[in-house]
């Protein structure tokens, strides 16, 4: 995979196609130098972002579309998830507290844990642009962490 330009994929708003997005995100992240553990987390965050679009923006309707773009930036990758569905409200995208063991509500927490910047742009006439930025850690920082 070329490390120079942006890549994108459009999938229907049907969860059975999420694995295609995961493969693309995995390959792009590896090609741009993220270590394997980070790649797994990036894939998870993107999966949760697209699942949220299916669940909330399209309310389970498989007839919509989701555009996923991955754009190289100087120190990492900028991902954009674009839908044409219902716009989110602030309460719906807030990560839940983790002090309660209960099903559901973890996806937004994963996105915020993994990504360095998360920005919802609801200014388009239809739908939402979700911008997710992931920076590579400096080599020294990774060694200290490990």
């Amino acid at each position: 995979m070329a490390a120079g330009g942006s890549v994108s994929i459009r999938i229907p708003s049907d969860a059975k196609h999420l694995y295609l997005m995961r493969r693309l995100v995995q390959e792009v992240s590896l090609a741009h130098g993220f270590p394997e553990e980070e790649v797994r987390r990036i894939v998870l965050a993107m999966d949760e972002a697209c699942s949220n679009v299916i669940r909330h923006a399209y309310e389970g309707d498989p007839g919509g579309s989701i555009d996923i773009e991955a754009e190289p930036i100087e120190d990492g990758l900028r991902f954009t998830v674009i839908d044409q569905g219902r716009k989110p409200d602030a309460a719906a995208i807030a990560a839940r507290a983790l002090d309660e063991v209960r099903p559901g509500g973890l996806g937004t927490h994963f996105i915020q844990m993994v990504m360095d910047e998360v920005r919802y742009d609801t200014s388009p006439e239809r739908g939402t642009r979700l911008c997710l930025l992931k920076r590579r850690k400096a080599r020294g920082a990774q060694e200290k962490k490990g």
Partner: protein
Amino acid sequence: MDIHVTVERTDEGHGVLEVRGEIDMHSSPRVREAQIKLLKEGARRVVVDLSGVAYMDSSGIATLIEGLQWSRREGRDFRLAGLSPAVRDVFELARLAEVFEIFSTRDEALKDA
């Protein structure tokens, strides 16, 4: 993307739910359906063998939390086995690795503590 879910009963009467594939929003309902069926069959202990699972998202975690909570209410054991590093990492991100009883292998999970 295919997922394979199988249910077994051991000679001791324990239930084993084996999942192979990737657990995401599309496939987790199949895992949930099999898990509910196994729990309702009344096994004293249920072991979810995840050694064939390469990927799990929050919907998979939610399914397992549901199984754990049901088991606690009913006074049963609910154990996980064979987590790959990728799946274990998701539990750690969710800060749930300490909440579940997690064993290296299915055989270890089936032994009495």
